């Protein structure tokens, strides 16, 4: 699906060359830096890639990446399901906005680590606490983005919906949500980037599997090659989600634009 999509969008060859040259330069700098320093502290690219391939072959890396992805998906879904309606409500109602604005500021500024520790203390070292901790970190950002969108909703369309008696459900589905879609996509983008980083911390502190747990383990063994291999694998997966899911969705939703 993703490859077909990439093939459909014609990329000029000069752009491909620039990307390839830039990647090669990065690998070269990495290699030289590794040679100049201690190979145990900064293993060369070749070593890291052989660890990556070995991890994929024996399935261990894939399993941990899969577990982490599942946590990312669960927290992301929870954060969007809670944050989007609250954001829309605060954008539409001035009194709700006034009342909850200070709460929002508070939650926006609580460090992720505090939420995680408190969730584990209050609910125990369980999966639900881990997911909730990540979602709580993300929800305020979703609210802020969606509130901004809901504030600028086109009044003309809302009046049209009211005069023609569309009712709440139809107004939401056909008038409000399509107009807020760019804001939902923006919240998803920044959400994905934030959430996967926090999920690793949650795993490091209170889970016995996932990429974060593994990195903690490698840290204790001073296994930098494995740490880098897991990082590369996960960055690759997240980039794939962006290219194969988010961007095509956005394009489809924008096909009405001239």
């Amino acid at each position, binding site marked *: 699906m993703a490859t077909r999509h990439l093939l459909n969008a014609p990329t000029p060859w000069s752009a491909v060359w620039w990307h390839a040259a830039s990647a090669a330069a990065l690998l070269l700098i990495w290699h030289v830096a590794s040679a100049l320093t201690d190979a145990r502290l900064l293993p060369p690219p070749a070593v890291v890639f052989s660890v990556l391939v070995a991890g994929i072959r024996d399935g261990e890396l894939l399993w941990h990446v899969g577990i982490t992805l599942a946590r990312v998906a669960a927290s992301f879904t929870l954060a969007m399901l809670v944050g989007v309606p609250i954001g829309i409500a605060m954008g539409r109602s001035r009194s709700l906005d006034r009342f909850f604005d200070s709460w929002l500021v508070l939650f926006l500024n609580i460090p992720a680590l505090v939420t995680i520790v408190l969730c584990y203390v209050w609910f125990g070292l369980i999966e639900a606490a881990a997911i909730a901790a990540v979602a709580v970190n993300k929800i305020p950002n979703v609210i802020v983005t969606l509130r901004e969108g809901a504030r600028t909703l086109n009044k*003309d*369309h809302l*009046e049209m919906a009211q*005069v*023609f008696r*569309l009712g709440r459900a139809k107004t939401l589905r056909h008038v409000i949500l*399509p107009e807020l879609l760019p804001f939902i996509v923006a919240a998803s983008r920044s959400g994905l980037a934030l959430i996967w980083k926090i999920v690793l911390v949650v795993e490091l502190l209170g889970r016995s599997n996932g990429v974060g747990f593994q990195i903690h383990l490698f840290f204790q063994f001073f296994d930098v090659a494995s740490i880098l291999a897991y990082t590369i694998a996960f960055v690759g997966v997240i980039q794939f989600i962006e290219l194969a899911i988010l961007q095509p969705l956005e394009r489809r*939703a924008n096909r*009405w634009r001239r």
Partner: protein
Amino acid sequence: MAAMSGLEIDVRLKRYPAVGRAAPHIALKDLRFTARRGEFVCLLGPSGCGKTTLLNIIAGLDRDFDGQVSLPTAPGKEEPVIGYVFQNPRLLPWRTVIENIKLVLTPEQAASGIVEDLLAATELQEFPHAYPERLSVGMSRRVALVRAFAVQPDLLLMDEPFVSLDEPTADRLRLLLLEIWRAHPTTVLFVTHDTREAAVLADRIILLSSAPGSIVMDLPIDIPRCERNDPAIIESIRQRLNGGDEFRV
């Protein structure tokens, strides 16, 4: 109220409160009139005299006024159905022409074939799946017209729907409007600042003063519409509207 009652408007006062340094503004004052069921009434007045405000009050979009409004309701219906052709077409850009129209209909209306009839009458039958941004201004306005008639309204509100079109296009749309209205009769309240437009369309012209808007003249036009393509007749109607210095186009 009797089942066959028409439109009854009684706006004692509509005032916009002061915003920042802007003084409070009285938009409408002592504005009273009724319209028979099926009558085509043009509200004629200078820009800024509160015409759009009045339509929004009638449509229920603005409830912050002193007075009352009673709408025509068809026998057997609980609530009056309103069709509104706004000054801008107000189509949803992310929905196609046909989706925009069917969105506001009941399932029975959507299945009744009325949309297809109206699209054919407005020569839009080839574009049901086009997105509004790809349509010309004139076409968008026809879609808005179709949408307003398709709900089979008890009251059709029109707010300068043909403004900013070139004159031949506007003329064609006016004739089209009358044609559709004859096929789907309903009470119409048509707002305009163009005397000529009012003279071509109306059964009755209500002339409004500048703000605060109230009624200056209530002029029934009994000349049959088929005779109104004569410029001399239109001119005589304009003469009767007080010489119309203020409104001459």
